[in-house]
């Protein structure tokens, strides 16, 4: 298992480097944002770009980029959006807002999603199952920003239950802040609930029809006992890794939802960096999202082994 984990980390690192390299080269190949004639910032920017190796071959530039990160955790300075500021500092400032919204979201969506999935599986082929399954399909088919606008229109505008946008400030655990982020939490939640519901229902349905469940019942276990002790445990082999993946994704933020609810998070920052041609911020965002995606995949895969002792991928026989 250890070897497998190390292998996966190595592969993850390898893939990360390839993606980073490709992104880096493509970004450096783009023409630099033009400065106005006689822009007095020119000299400063030239010095900074010289320090980043802009006039050197791409491979050497990439080496300077990596060296800066490894030795000084230097991701460069912002050239457009936050002129002269360390882009890592800017990025870190944005992380909490993204994380808090996603954290609250998964905190309730996972239990609700799993619960609905269990109910649907246990009530398979009844109106309850049909209702849940139909709603699940509808919710999964509609993008989250559609819910976002609906939620904002109904809860914030029509019924005035919540503020339109996230409250300003950094008091992330205050009641006012919580109330202000309920709409984005809901907007983010529907898709996750539907996803967990569908996964749980599918797995549990399959497990419930397994022969060992019949054996459990013939041994004298009640249906509840058999479901809780055997069926759920087996179906969680698939569900729990997905939970881990969701938790990793907390810090990823949501590009569209953050814009609609004015959440000053990393998702918004990424879009602004793209629109504003702030290459250093965009490069950091790209690396960040790549790392998040790879880490989530790694955690999901490794967690299988911990959850189900029968799974020992890559181990010697």
């Amino acid at each position, binding site marked *: 298992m250890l070897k497998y984990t190390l292998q996966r980390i190595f592969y993850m690192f390898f893939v990360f480097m390839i993606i980073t390299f490709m992104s880096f080269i493509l970004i450096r190949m783009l*023409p630099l944002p033009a400065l*106005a*004639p*006689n*822009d*007095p*910032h*020119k*000299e*400063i920017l*030239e*010095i*900074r*770009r*010289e*320090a980043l190796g802009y*006039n050197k071959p791409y491979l050497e530039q990439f080496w300077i980029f990596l060296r800066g990160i490894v030795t*000084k955790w*230097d991701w460069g*300075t912002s050239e457009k*959006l*936050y*002129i*002269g*500021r360390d882009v890592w500092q*800017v990025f870190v*400032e*944005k992380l909490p807002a993204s994380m808090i919204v996603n954290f609250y979201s998964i905190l309730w969506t996972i239990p609700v999603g799993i619960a609905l999935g269990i109910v649907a599986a246990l009530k398979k082929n009844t109106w309850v199952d049909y209702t849940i399954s139909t709603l699940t399909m509808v919710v999964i088919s509609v993008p989250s920003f559609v819910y976002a*606008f609906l939620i*904002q*229109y109904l809860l*914030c*505008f*029509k019924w*005035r239950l919540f503020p*339109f*946008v*996230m409250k*300003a*400030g*950094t008091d992330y655990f205050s009641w006012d802040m919580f109330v202000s982020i309920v709409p984005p939490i809901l907007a983010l939640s529907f898709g996750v609930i539907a996803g967990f519901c569908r996964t749980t229902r599918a797995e549990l349905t399959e497990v419930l029809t397994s022969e060992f469940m019949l054996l459990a019942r013939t041994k004298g276990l009640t249906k509840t006992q058999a479901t809780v002790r055997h069926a759920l445990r087996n179906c969680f082999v698939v569900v729990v890794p997905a939970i881990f993946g969701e938790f990793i994704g907390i810090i990823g933020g949501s590009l569209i939802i953050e*814009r*609609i*609810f*004015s959440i*000053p998070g990393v998702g*918004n*920052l990424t879009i*602004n960096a793209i629109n504003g041609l702030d290459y250093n911020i965009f490069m950091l965002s790209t690396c960040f999202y790549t790392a998040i995606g790879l880490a989530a995949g790694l955690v999901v895969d490794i967690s299988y082994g911990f959850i189900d002792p029968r799974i020992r991928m890559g181990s010697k026989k």
Partner: protein
Amino acid sequence: MSNMKKILSFILALMMLVSMLAACAPKDDTGDDGTSGPAESSGEQGKEEIKITEFDKDKKYTYNSWQTGLSANWNPHDYEDANSSDQMSYLIDSFYTFAFNDELHPMEDTSRTPFDGYVIIPSMAAGMPVDVTEEVAKEHPDWVPEGATSGYAYAIPMREDLYFDTGYHITANTYVEGMKRILDYKFQNYRSTDVYSGTYGIAGAEDYFFQGHENFKSFSDMGSSYDDYIANGGKEEDIYIDIGGFWGIETADGKTYASVTDDTMIRDPAVPEGADEDYVSAKYLWDNYLGPNGVLTSYTPGYAGILKSYPANVAFEDTVGFYAKDEYTLVEVFKASCSGFTLFYNAIQDSLILVDPDIYDKCATQQADGTWASTYMTSVETSPSYGPYSLTDYQTDKVAHYSRNDKWYGYKDDVNNIYKDPTDGNVYRLYQTTDIDIQVLDSAATAKNMFLAGELATYGLQADDVDEYRNSEYCFNSPGPNVFFTLLTGNKDGLDAREAADGFDTSKEDIQTILCPSFRKAFAVSFDRQAFCDETSPQNIPGYGIFGTTIIYDPDTAAYYRDTDVAKKALCDFYSVDTSKYSNLDDAVDSITGFDPEAAKELYTAAFQESLDAGYITDEDNDGKCDQTITIMYALSAESDSMTRRIDWLDKAIVEATKGTPFENKVHVGKTAPLGSGSEFADALKAGSADVCLAGWDGSAMDPYNLLTAYTHEDQAYAAEWYYPKQDMLTLTLDGKEITMSVYDWAEAVTGNNTKAQDGKTYNFGTNDADQETRMQILAGVEGKLLETYTYIPFINNGSLALLSQKVYYVTDEYNAVMARGGIAYLKYNYDDDAWKTFCDEQIAEHGMIQY
């Protein structure tokens, strides 16, 4: 030229900014008894006592605003964009400011009605500037041209009660400290060029800024030319070229200038490898383009010059014409003579250098790469205010909140910071707003919902909202100074190349016909501009001239060019309006629609014959119809619903216009793939790879003369590839004397350059050399000539539509290009915050939203 445009754009922005700051205070804070309800206090205006109606001191009036982004830096030395200047505007003030003309601040022109213009009044200054040129010339002869006795040096008396909200007392020396810091080379402050460069920079500021460094100086910058330089003993080998500006390249070590003797070949990234001029050198550019034997010598003054070395270790006091005469008198020495509006503008601009030296110095840090950066004005802690508001909350990309700065002198000023309300006749203080809250909202839908729920003060209407709200009494139209024209390409080479390309079937398609003069004229009269505005962009109004309705030709009097008789006559002449049929010129102008379907049909028929004769199209079956289909490609910058709507409208209109002509169902308007919102769409048009687009120039809201150069300078003009203003001659009768010059030369002359006319005499019709009447005659003459090219076909006068919350109201509904409707300074409130909340609750309970 592009730099000039930028500067002029800045001037407009600055005027708007300063107008926001106009004069002073919202409520009296001299008392401290906390009484509420209307009250009156006494102020003095000269000897006459004025009763001032005070706002309720206990009430809170919050202006809730929104924008799509907040700037991370509003440092007056380094700000760049509109968001930065907006955020900065609440925290700063200036020596002089703009105020609406009212009984308390009347204009010299007594025919003007209150609130239809503006006056310039002292703000942080204690009085008007005093010309001290003679005095300064004696002490510092190097700062003032020899023999000059006025117009260069001014002493500005300052108020003694100026403070930052930190308590830092502002004196003349504080300004000097600010000037030293903005000119500190190591910071490379973005706004330093405003101070040291240009005609009206501060004397000696450039030498101080560049001390110990080199800097490229073009002949234009030095007020010189290549011929003058050589005549004065200059050597050609000492000349440098601005290769960055002229050709878009730079040397291997990142320099944007190079010696004309430098034959190092530099790769031009804009040219494909292997094509002509994929590699060029400075020497090549000089020999072929800019040098005496080059083909673009008109560019030489702007892009050729010398490399100037500046002596190191110069003392500020001996070098820069900016010093404290005494504790409350500041002396400014300008590089060029200025007076009137220009003087006030310069004084306003220079006063923006003010910073709190203590905080400023603490904010300076050296970066790992050796460069310097400043965090001044990037947070609440680093944002000292000397304006009407203090920054009390700021979160990057989220919110900025401003509250009254009680240390601001303006709230106690009973002279300048008051106005007489045109409705009730009472005298009020400016700035009733106690708090300003700016939210960042990226979604217009969110903003609309928030506005309708009473949480925002304004909402700019989107296309889908216009039908619902355009007739609302709370909907305000703000006309812009600019006209957007439909620009029809005339680049024959480009069009020929397209027809010659693979895939273009000339038996079925044609595009060269758009070169035919009759076709271009027919195109110009094919569109009902009013219908276009109504159906595609209701915030705009039809535009008929090169200049818009609110462009000001004389900033001293706030006079609009379009209101003048010569401007009206120019339009009537171009649109062939028989003025004798109308009782006055206004009626004649009002009759112009620019739409003449009958004439269009005749012209299309004539164009058919012209095109046949030119061999562009065929009529094989002799049915009198064109065999080819002409699809005029709109140069699309980016895909959007509004663009699609516009292009569809144009297509439908031209199909209708060609009905019954040989081009019936043969002319369409299509669109290119998105080309990009930079200069790409214009480049495509210039190159003839696209055919038409709606385009215009912004900026120059108070200088239409300068805007002319956007049409006459090759590096700016959209039509540079097919309209040659240097060859287009124009004869004007000025003071009974006929003068003939090219359109290019007229534009040069009216912008203050010496130009030679056909009579061999040299003329200059710049601000200091000709009266306004003469200059306007020239402006109208050139405008008429440009219209006659049928390249720039005026279409819409830009504008905006916005809803204003019922919580507030404008003191005047009339829009003024400089003052807008008064901005925050003049904004008044129907409800304080508590009353507004109650009102909103009631409205929403009853109607579901606030009714507009």
